[in-house]
């Protein structure tokens, strides 16, 4: 709180420390929403600038980070809207889908998926999979499960109710699980990746 207080009083060095403390998280969150690196860079700049300009409005009732995340999410959604030539984009978009409401793919994952893919290939799979989720599910999963915000902080950051966060989180987790299962599940006793490699070798 001390850093925020000092920054609020115009101490630019204190604000710089806040930027260093939270820039990686803001960059990750922005990338997950806008799915474009240049736009994510712009979001990082705009979010911190807006936070600096509005520091006097920060009440201190919530954590600075939660308040900053809310600004970054809004900036990200605005950036998405610009790219989609003015079409409205909100975190409520496409959340009515039935996908992921009940698990279908019920094969276990074995061996450990980490053993099947290299770091880079795994990164591609994870990015591709999460990018397929509706933004309103994606952002809840990222804040809650990747960035480690509590349910209450996630709700506050997104302007959603706690039941809405819980419901979206469940759907997001199940959709991701279902989609990753296509890569990781056992098939006839063998993992998909191993089977595909053998198919390719025939």
């Amino acid at each position, binding site marked *: 709180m001390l850093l925020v207080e000092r920054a609020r009083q115009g101490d*630019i060095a204190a*604000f*710089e420390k806040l*930027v*260093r403390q939270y*820039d*990686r998280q803001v*960059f*990750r969150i922005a*990338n*997950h929403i806008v799915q474009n690196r240049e736009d*994510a*860079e712009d979001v*990082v*700049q705009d979010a*911190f*600038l807006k936070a*600096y*300009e509005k520091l006097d409005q920060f009440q201190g009732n919530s954590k600075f980070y939660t308040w900053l995340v809310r600004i970054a999410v809004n900036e990200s959604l605005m950036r998405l809207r610009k790219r989609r030539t003015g079409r409205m984009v909100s975190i409520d978009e496409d959340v009515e889908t039935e996908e992921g409401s*009940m*698990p279908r793919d*019920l*094969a*276990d*994952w074995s061996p450990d*998926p*980490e053993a099947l893919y290299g*770091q880079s290939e*795994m*990164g591609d799979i*994870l*990015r591709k999979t*999460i990018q397929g989720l509706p933004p309103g599910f994606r952002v809840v*999963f990222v804040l809650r*499960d*990747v960035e480690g915000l509590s349910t209450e902080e996630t709700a506050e950051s997104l302007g959603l109710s706690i039941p809405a966060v*819980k419901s979206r*989180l*469940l759907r997001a*987790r*199940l959709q*991701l*699980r279902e989609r*990753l*299962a296509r890569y*990781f599940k056992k098939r006839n006793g063998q993992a998909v990746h191993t089977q595909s490699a053998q198919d390719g070798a025939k």
Partner: protein
Amino acid sequence: MTCTEFLAQLDEMLDPKMSGPLRDDLQEHLRCCEHCEITLNTTRKTIEIYRSHELYALPDDLRERLHKAILAKCKKC
């Protein structure tokens, strides 16, 4: 407990700090439902795998460039 009821409470099972009668009921369901056990294990793995992979790392050079740009704009405020 049905599978649908179990699923609605999946969050409870994914939180290691959760305890109490609800968790006991969920554990009881797991003992006789392989499908829900697989759903729980693979959902837990889904979360772990996303948490342990840095999908959008901020490289040092870009980080410095962004800092300079942010602070230059703040100083103009």
